[in-house]
């Protein structure tokens, strides 16, 4: 399968107040084929959302900038594209759903206006046709009475409904790539399941490639075929989803998976205590100090871990991890 979206050596830097530069994304690589879903997981603050903004080229400049790398969409490097070209890409070829449906819609325009705006912009539809398309999209995301809802304002809708509107808006131009940045974090659990079902269904219809950003391993298991685990702006492990869940290599990934509570265990058995990863994600100012950023929190850290950055190493078929546990032979050489 050929890659629709290819991210190579992507680095994003931010200028800090004290004049220092922080590399919030460092040498990120991944690729994604049409109709497939890539999950990006990690704790808050490890660069997942910034990766999404970088692909849209919406990193706030200044203080941020995309320092190096390439983001190829169907062969075209988006980092070389003009701003005008990027405006054509955004919302049309690549669209995005955000974490906060409550605040991601403009409160002073009707949802019909906001969905219609995208198709009018990219497909030159008339106001009337755009409205029809908006109704059609609302129906596609299973919003009841779309003819009535289309003229309502965001505050008249519940959180789940608003996220459906966001999805309708994102998919209105049938984008090749959909980036869903924690699309269900702000919603309650039953609504989360509905939104994921909806995303899967629409993905099958439109053949869109989906990047699902989340810290929820359960969502990854349900949605994605492939997983990238990020920590402190770096990819620490990448594998197909089954392999990742059954055979995680990086201590961080193992920690993340161990943190998921298990419900399928025999209720007769005593439930083991819920795991946690000690410590916190390094702050922006602490990035780029050399060595593995996870070392201070890692139970298996060795002497060299805080000094040297572990390279990405093959740890199985189609499975890579960046950890000295698996690069020992190379390092000894």
């Amino acid at each position, binding site marked *: 399968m050929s890659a629709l979206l290819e991210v190579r050596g992507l680095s994003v830097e931010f200028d800090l107040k004290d004049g220092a530069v922080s590399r919030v994304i460092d040498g990120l690589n991944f690729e994604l084929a049409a109709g497939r879903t890539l999950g990006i997981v990690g704790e808050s603050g490890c660069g997942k959302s910034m990766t999404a903004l970088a692909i*849209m080229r*919406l990193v706030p400049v200044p203080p941020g900038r995309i320092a190096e790398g390439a983001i190829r969409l169907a062969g075209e490097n988006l980092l070389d594209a003009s701003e005008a070209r*990027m*405006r*054509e*890409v*955004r*919302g*049309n070829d690549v*669209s*995005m759903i*955000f974490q*906060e449906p409550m*605040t*991601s*819609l*403009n*409160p*002073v*325009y*009707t949802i019909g206006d906001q969905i219609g*705006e*995208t198709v009018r*912009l*990219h497909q030159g539809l008339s106001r009337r046709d755009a409205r029809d398309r908006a109704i059609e999209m609302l129906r596609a995301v299973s919003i009841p009475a779309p003819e009535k809802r289309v003229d309502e*304002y965001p*505050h*008249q809708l519940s959180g789940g409904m608003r996220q459906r509107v*966001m999805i309708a*808006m994102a998919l209105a131009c049938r984008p090749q790539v959909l980036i869903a940045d924690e699309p269900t974090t702000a919603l309650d659990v039953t609504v989360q399941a509905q939104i994921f079902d909806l995303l899967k269904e629409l993905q099958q219809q439109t053949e869109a490639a989906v990047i699902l950003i989340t810290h929820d391993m359960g969502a990854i298991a349900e949605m994605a075929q492939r997983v990238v685990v990020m920590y402190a702006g770096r990819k620490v492990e990448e594998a197909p989803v089954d392999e990742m869940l059954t055979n995680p290599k990086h201590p961080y990934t193992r920690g993340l998976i161990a943190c998921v509570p298990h419900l399928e265990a025999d209720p007769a058995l005593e439930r083991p205590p819920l795991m946690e990863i000690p410590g916190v994600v390094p702050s922006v100012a602490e990035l780029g100090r050399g060595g593995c950023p996870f070392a201070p929190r890692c139970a298996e850290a060795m002497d060299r871990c805080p000094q040297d950055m572990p390279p990405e190493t093959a740890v199985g078929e189609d499975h890579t991890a960046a950890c000295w546990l698996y690069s020992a032979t190379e390092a000894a050489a």
Partner: protein
Amino acid sequence: MRLPAVIAKRLGYALALLFAVLVLNFTLLYLAPGDAAETIAGEAGGASPEMLAKIRKDYGLDLPFLDQLYLYLLKVVQGDFGHSFYFDQPVTTVIFENLAPTLLLVVSSLLIAISFGTFLGVFAARRPNGLLSQIITVLALLGYALPVFWTGIMLIILLASVIPLFPTSGMDSGPLGAAGFGYVWEVLHHLALPVLTLSTIYLAFYSRLSRASMMDVLGADYIRTARAKGLNERVVVFKHALRNAVLPVVTFAGLQFGALFSGAVLVETVFSWPGLGTLAFDSILRRDTPTLLGILFFSALIVIVANLLTDLAYRLVDPRIKSAARA
């Protein structure tokens, strides 16, 4: 809540408020030291004690306070605001002659302050540390710090005296002036300095306000959504951000209309602008109580109407208000 219901409720409040304004103003002016009868007699060139007593009786000034108040309210309800003994005309006639110039001054100042202020604020918000932002900050500081009458006098000295671009006072060039469009131009020419004086403070204020509001809105999630749609920056700023950012400006414009009106008194006095402010000022000096009471009443009325309009404007801009009560 439905719009007619809202308007009905507001009108009810407005009537109660106007009643309170009438009673309070009448009481305050009654308590003010000085004898209206002596003032009236003074206009006539002095009078004997018998004449004073007759004046008091004719004008009802010898009645107890509550009787006077009752009579006044009764007349007002009938649309009669009394008789100005200085002009020897009904108060309503005197006021209506002066109302239009004041509204012209106040409304044009407000519109200029809001439109230019918002415009400057929006551009400053794009670069919070840029030159325009700094200039606006300094201007706002000056606007707050400079008293209106001082600004007015300085502008007269600079732009009417040293560089005689504008007339120093009045609203037209008198009976010898032009007619038709020439007259309109003449009035605009006279209007320039007073409006500049009155609008400066508010322009500074609104630019600060809209700058802060705009910066806030530009960081909102829905602005990121708008950018992610592929909209260009102009549409993002002027369609998606501005309408949200302008909400506090609308609120303050309504609240400050009253303050603007009192600012107009000073500006009109400095520029001899023939409006309600000048009339009010002169009426105080002349102890022309009926005229003063009438002016205070109409000023209150105008402020109340302005607030009502603000409320309606707010509903127009922000859909959340309409259904807040309905939901």
